[in-house]
């Protein structure tokens, strides 16, 4: 048997994975290893697989992912800081047959946009909220976020978050899970293949449940911020596993409108 060469393998008919067509060719503006890119790609893959590119309107936040509209080849609106759930509420109410999602960081969703998030969730808007939690303000240069862990340093808490001084980290995801308008809540990560597959499944289910008018599907993705955490990409992922996951445990929090009891 003749040895097979790389040229024999790398042929169109043997392709098993490539970037989704719903992603544009623009180079992502994120730092090396940042989970935003992976999260974007999962949303794009779900849109492509469901065949809803022409039916989907996304809302990007203020923060690192403000330019998300340059990376996803769908109609998108850029919302003021924290206001994405209000913007998405209007889009969905005037076009209930469309798929509408927001993509928000921790500063956007859990600090300045707390009211918009809670009320859109409580009203049970038929939207998908994707919440990227890396415990820090990335774009503005690593300041403390509402989700910054106790003891975790940031540029506005250089000696670590002191609960006495700065208050507690906010578990927004558990909070919204208690609201009647919220249908499903789960927490994921996108740093390993296994976690990526789970996160994608959750996003897929969230989009599907929009069609059934079940209310908000809320997906938190605990992610990294190598630049803000001042770690290499791989070290940042290890740090995330060791420090973020114990406080923000991955898994289902609300399924089919019912809180998951552990």
């Amino acid at each position: 048997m003749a040895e097979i060469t790389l040229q024999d393998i790398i042929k169109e008919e043997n392709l098993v994975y490539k970037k989704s067509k719903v992603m544009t060719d623009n180079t992502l503006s994120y730092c090396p290893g940042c989970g935003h890119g992976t999260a974007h790609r999962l949303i794009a893959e779900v849109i492509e697989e469901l065949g809803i590119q022409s039916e989907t309107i996304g809302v990007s936040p203020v923060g690192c992912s403000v330019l998300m509209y340059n990376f996803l080849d769908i109609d998108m609106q850029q919302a003021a800081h924290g206001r994405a759930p209000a913007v998405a509420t209007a889009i969905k109410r005037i076009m209930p047959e469309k798929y509408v999602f927001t993509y928000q960081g921790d500063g956007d969703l859990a600090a300045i946009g707390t009211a918009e998030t809670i009320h859109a969730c409580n009203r049970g808007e038929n939207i998908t909220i994707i919440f990227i939690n890396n415990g820090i303000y990335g774009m503005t240069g690593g300041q403390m976020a509402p989700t910054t862990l106790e003891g975790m340093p940031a540029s506005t808490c250089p000696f670590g978050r002191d609960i006495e001084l700065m208050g507690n980290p906010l578990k927004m995801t558990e909070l919204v899970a208690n609201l009647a308008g919220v249908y499903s809540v789960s927490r994921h990560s996108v740093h390993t293949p296994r976690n990526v597959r789970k996160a994608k499944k959750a996003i897929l289910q969230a989009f599907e449940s929009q069609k059934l008018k079940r209310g908000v599907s809320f997906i938190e993705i605990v992610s990294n911020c190598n630049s803000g955490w001042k770690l290499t990409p791989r070290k940042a992922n290890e740090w995330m596993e060791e420090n973020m996951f114990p406080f923000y445990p991955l898994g289902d929090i609300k399924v089919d409108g019912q809180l998951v009891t552990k």
Partner: protein
Amino acid sequence: MEKELRLMKGNEAIAEAAIRAGADAYFGYPITPQSEVIEYLMAQQPHKRTGMVVLQAESEVSAINMIYGAAACGRMAMTSSSSPGISLKQEGISYIAGAELPCLILNVVRGGPGLGTIQPAQSDYFQSTKGGGHGDYRLVVLAPASVQEMYDSVELGFDLAFKYLNPVMVLADGIIGQMMEKVELGEQKVRRTPEEIIKQCPWATTGKPESRDHNIITSLDLVAANQEKFNIKLQAKYKEIQDKEVRYEMINCEDADYILVAYGSSARLSMKAMDILRAKGIKVGIFRLITLFPFPSKQLFELADKVKGFLAVEMSAGQMVEDLQLAVQFKKPVKHFGRFGGVIPSPEEIADALEQKIIGG
């Protein structure tokens, strides 16, 4: 056809006008003295009458961002509030102006600053006509002086908003919002279909078909040179609005020596003051501003050649008077008379002010 007449509050009239104009959405938050707008809408169940979406938001901030979302889909969206609530909306208004989206914003002005009072005022003139939020932008500002004009401002406002892709503000006050007058209602317009909206607003985020690139609604450009270019484009638009959209009414100005310049409720009060002064043999006319931005600077500049002086009458400590002074350019004396903080001036006070500040001055 027989006219459809109804006795209505200004706030109710503008709400009914929104339904009849075929508006797609209203988002708001209650605040005195304009809560009748959303109360009327909710009672009318416009989702049944026309399919219009009406939602009480959790805050003015949220409401204006709902407007952003709806306007970005090419919809006719309207919000309303009163002074403190309009202050809260400024972030969203700036984004709407920066993203070049059409919408209608009603401000039923009350006395300020701060929580102020719930009585009528005109002290939000600067905020409305000079931008209000951050950045170099302008709103088209309409100043209704009757319940009928409140009603009519909806269709005119949406026309201007979609023509220039710019937010339009209806700057009323507590008197115009709360008083009842006879209104002639227009016919119910059919709301545009989604297909018509796509045709009229090819920029809207209505879902990207294969046939076009994706639409993006944003006010962000990280390249300063591009942002400057965009700002220059905005300024050109405001210049065009200034050239084409000035609206005003001149009453008894042909033979007048003195002109009362006013808008909204102040213009109505000035009518009575004019009668008092004319009865005394003083030839007084009224220049009523209908658009506050664009301001009729050219017309007032020309009028200055024919008269002896101007009195700006406004329920503020003196805001519109600054634009009047700029317009008249020291050709003739320009003075201000105002009561404010929720106090309504009497026609006698206005007449006295003209006699003392302009004629006597």
